[in-house]
């Protein structure tokens, strides 16, 4: 049969094998792929080498504070054996977890407990460490790990002068914040101009003490 229509529409030329190969994503991206392998290898090496140090840094951040929190600054050099417990507290149908360090002297005697507590401050979350004596009857110290309170006012909660008020307070009664001088044992003097920040820290401590009291046994 004779082809009556010699003018055929143009068909795309079939790609030769070579061209097809060159257009493929794999070949286009060979450099990217190579770099991925190379960089990925480098990064995993770095991670393997440095991760233990970073993890240790993170743990130390808390651990270094513990002797001072429990024994006071004068005896902070004494080495303590630390053991981490996770204590679960049931609250209004919701579970709250506390990371509590159990600290013992070299001879095995219990030195006290240190727990991490978190709560809302005036500006953002406040994260702090709270030290309790072996029977959880007295607060031995407070250290603020992280806060973003107003500079010049609320951020005075990190000062030694203000924090040291908490040391020695008994846990059987809730702490209250007062302005202009402490009159009773369970009172905490507010930072002038930063009553809310002062109250937030005290509230975090009250909550933590209440949650943990009775759960800490040597």
């Amino acid at each position: 049969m004779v082809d009556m229509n010699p003018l055929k529409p143009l068909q795309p030329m079939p790609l030769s094998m070579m061209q097809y190969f060159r257009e493929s994503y794999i070949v286009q991206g060979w450099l990217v792929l190579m770099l991925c392998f190379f960089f990925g290898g480098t990064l995993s090496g770095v991670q393997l080498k440095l991760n233990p140090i970073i993890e240790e840094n993170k743990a130390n951040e808390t651990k270094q504070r513990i002797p001072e929190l429990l024994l006071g600054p004068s005896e902070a050099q004494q080495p303590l054996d630390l053991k981490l417990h996770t204590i679960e507290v049931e609250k209004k149908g919701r579970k709250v977890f506390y990371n509590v360090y159990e600290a013992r002297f070299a001879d095995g005697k219990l030195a006290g407990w240190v727990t991490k507590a978190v709560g809302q401050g005036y500006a953002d979350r406040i994260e702090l460490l709270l030290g309790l004596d072996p029977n959880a009857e007295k607060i031995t110290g407070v250290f603020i790990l992280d806060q973003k309170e107003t500079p010049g006012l609320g951020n005075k909660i990190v000062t030694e002068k203000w924090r040291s008020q908490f040391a020695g307070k008994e846990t059987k009664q809730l702490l209250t914040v007062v302005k202009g001088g402490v009159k009773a044992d369970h009172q905490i003097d507010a930072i002038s101009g930063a009553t809310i920040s002062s109250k937030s820290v005290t509230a975090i401590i009250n909550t933590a003490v209440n949650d943990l009291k009775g759960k800490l046994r040597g």
Partner: protein
Amino acid sequence: MENKQQTDSVPAEAGSVIHVAPSPHLSDTALTTQRMMMDVLIALAPVVGMALYVFQWYAVHQLVICVASCFAAESLFTTMRGKPITLKDYSAAVTGVILAMSLPGTAPWYVGVIASFVAIGIGKVIFGGIGMNIFNPAMVGRAFVMIAFASALGATGYEDALSKIDAITQATPLTAFKQNGIVAPLADLFWGSTNGSLGETSALACIIGGLYLCIRRTASWEIPAGVILISAVIGEIQCLVNPQAGWTVLHHLCGGALLFGAFFIATDPVTSPLTPKGKFIFGIGVGAFIMLLRLFSGYPEGVMFAVLLMNGVTPLINRWTIPRPLGSAK
């Protein structure tokens, strides 16, 4: 000035011809910056007088520092920009006095100095001098020191238990109410024997000065009207929701810097909208922000931030309220 020159240049024989000049058509050639500023200073007199009476040396001290620093800052910064010194229009004096009246008497000297330099430098000259600024200069200065020296200008900065002046030994009425629920007697708020920023304590003095400004048309009545109206409405709602607190609408109006802000700060013609409708919207905005900050923020008072916020939206209000020429398409 320009208008005057144009009138002078018209030849004498053309006296009978109606003279047509390009806008602005200033109907009253006496309406100069200088006269307006003098008006504001006169209107501030009762406020300043009351501050001197209640706070005595504290007020003198703060006034001298702020006005002197504002003059110094004005001459320094305008010289730096290579412009003729514009001390004669009294705008620096007005900024200085308003700034002093908005600071606590107990603030240390450097607070006044820094606030004045920031007010004139960052608040005004950097934008191109008087008439060009977006934000009220005095409030820019105050906001700067308020954040910089939080302890000197926070609620406790106002109190000095050892002061010889009774007012200063107490907490400001708004702080006392916010923190301890103590309601100050209305008469004290009205006459001005309470603690607070120097110029804000006496509602009476603010009203006298404010009415003078409105009658002289130096300030537009729409702005204070808007502020007071919306504050009264929100105050009344708050009263209905929480009547046992005892803080009534009149407490809201007379307490704190609401009246001082409404009459003297928000009415700055440079930083408020141009049209009457726009001015009213501006006043409503300022009043609403004041009440919002008073009721829901950590600060006891919100006049400064309210005015600055509304200054920021002034260009927008101006755009919304362009008057439509008669006969133009809708």
